């Protein structure tokens, strides 16, 4: 089959969605004021900060109205307080502090001028009343976190949930917060078609009918002419090219990093087309032997390998594993190095 021609195939009828979960394990510095607040929580004490006549709880480093820095004059409040307002949570989310229905409430701790938002555990909605008195139920193992207070419970007397493991050994300076979000994103039809083609060891591009530029990876639009592409823009691309530039990455260990040795990523200019595949793996080639101008050929996963590369089926270039030297003489063109896109 000549390059530049793609057999007719019907367009995918239904857009595919993929689900991915992103986690952001944040470690936050607390600073002098929130640090003291969190440290006090481990001691089963709640601190506010003086702002003129008012006591702000939780404490802030600055006046919320004017932004003026506050002297860090911390004042103990509570631990009991009065419910000023509340709303019932009949179906808690996985992020909420309690698994059973509860009230989120503005609680004015004794001695405070502002309410603290926290959960109140009363069992049922009918037991919640404005003005009710509540006190903290402390966690037995406290780490310096707002959830060291499990929730508030009716009455004047604080409780401890389980054995009391006591205060922190040292001032609390950092807190962990794990943000975890699951997304469900559409895969544009043209991207899916490019991926499907690559599962058949084919490399297809999309040629803009206006400017003639060719794009790979199923980019379904020309960002220069601002038009979308359909299947009739697809063209077949050759499986050989020239390395225009490369980078050698020395891996640092972070969650999800599987590489341990330095590895290369190369930029490959496809023969006969003005298309660069960026950040491509190279196969059976020591990183020290990589050269700009080197001639390479695409390496496709075999059917046997495919089974081991489940994640590969979700990659935009599916079965394309990387590029291997094809033995041809290097291209000597000093401008090649500029081609990374």
């Amino acid at each position, binding site marked *: 089959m000549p390059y530049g021609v793609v057999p007719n195939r019907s367009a995918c009828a239904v857009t595919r969605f993929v689900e991915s979960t992103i986690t952001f394990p944040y470690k936050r510095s607390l600073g002098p004021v929130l640090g003291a607040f969190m440290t006090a929580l481990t001691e089963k004490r709640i601190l506010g900060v003086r702002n003129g006549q008012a006591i702000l709880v939780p404490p802030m480093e600055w006046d919320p109205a004017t932004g003026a820095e506050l002297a860090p004059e911390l004042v103990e409040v509570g631990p009991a307080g009065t419910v000023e307002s509340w709303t019932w949570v009949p179906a808690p989310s996985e992020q909420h502090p309690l698994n059973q229905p509860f009230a*989120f409430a503005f609680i004015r701790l004794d001695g405070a001028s502002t309410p603290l938002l926290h959960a109140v555990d009363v069992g049922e909605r009918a037991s919640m009343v404005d003005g009710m008195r509540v006190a903290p139920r402390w966690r037995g193992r406290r780490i310096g976190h707002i959830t060291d207070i499990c929730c508030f419970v009716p009455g004047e007397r604080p409780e401890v949930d389980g054995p009391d493991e006591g205060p922190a050994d040292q001032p609390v300076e950092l807190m962990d917060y794990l943000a975890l979000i699951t*997304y469900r*994103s*559409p895969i544009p039809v043209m991207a899916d078609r490019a991926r499907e083609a690559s599962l058949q060891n084919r490399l297809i591009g999309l040629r803009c009918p206006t400017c003639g530029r060719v794009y790979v990876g199923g980019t379904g639009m020309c*960002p220069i002419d601002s038009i979308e592409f359909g299947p009739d823009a697809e063209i077949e691309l050759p499986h050989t090219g020239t390395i225009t530039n490369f980078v050698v990455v020395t891996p640092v260990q972070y969650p999800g990093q599987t590489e341990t040795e330095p590895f290369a990523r190369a930029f490959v200019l496809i023969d006969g087309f003005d298309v660069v595949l960026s950040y491509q793996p190279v196969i059976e080639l020591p990183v020290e032997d990589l050269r700009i101008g080197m001639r390479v050929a695409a390496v496709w996963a075999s059917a046997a390998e495919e089974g081991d590369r489940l994640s590969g089926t979700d990659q935009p270039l599916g079965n394309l594993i990387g590029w291997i030297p094809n033995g041809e003489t290097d291209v000597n063109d000093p401008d090649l190095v500029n081609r990374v896109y």
Partner: protein
Amino acid sequence: MTPRRAPKTSKDIAVVGWAQTPMVRQTDLTEAQMLLRVITDALAPLGLTRADVDFTCLGSCDYITGQAFSFVTNLDAIGAWPPKRDSHVEMDGAWALYEAWLRLHEGDIEIAVVTGSGRSSTGDPALIYPMEMDPYVLAPLGADPVTFAALQARAVIAAGLADERSMAEVAIRARGKGTVEELLAGEYVREPLRRHDLPPVTDGAAAMVLAIGDRADELVDRPAYITGFDHRTECHNPAFRRLDDSPSTRIAAAEAGLGNGRVEVAELQAAFTHEELLLHHVLELDDDVKINQSGGALKANPIMATGLCRIGYAADHILDGGARALAHATSGPCLQQNLICILEGPS
């Protein structure tokens, strides 16, 4: 030394057109695809192409998209070759409009395009928005916007500005369905809020075209001149605010010159029914002002475009022959940050 201030009012910068995508519960399109289409839809009726656009500013949110630097992908939609003047705000498109309006004051360019875009259906808004709260004392509790909205609704009701019946009436006016009795028979999601008091989850995008001076007059019969524009913010933690008031809205309205004349229509970004009643009160709108004839955020709530759509509908009023319109946009829990835009027709 007195700092040089951009003029607070100007007859020189106008909205000349805008477009929005279909507003749906879940779209098959990526954000870049939505933007590609909606920018074309905004420009084409004016006889303009992307080559005529001197400045773009896009409003979107990585947290909603689920992709770091997602606005870079969105640049595929603006036709940025040869390279263009471009900016981005991690805010509703209404704030992108504010930046473009400031940029046009420089006087060296004529046409700007602003957008707002978001696919709320990509994630679960109930789980994403708590993560945008105060990271020390609120986010770890999963303090969600509906909880805060309910606490604000209680304050607004206690102040005599709303009750569950008047809130249901707002919902009926916005969506054109149901009776007060039917709606009040529903269960509470967060007392005193029921399902009808909450906004829908909406995917969508909007694009707006701005032009200056004579260029605006060439493009349309009645440019919607931006004669007042201001935005203000309050403390991030709703527990430190008076929830039965919105001082930032009041200040922004005064600075934008709302009181300099009567407005015929008001488009208020009220995602919850009680917010519309509170804003109506704070803005001291007369009873004959037509509020949220578009259905507002209760009918379609494309996060990051909802505010820009309010300005679009207000501009439509001018483009269609009206004299003066108010648009409001908001951001953050319990109306934390508020923007007021006054639009006027040629006198």
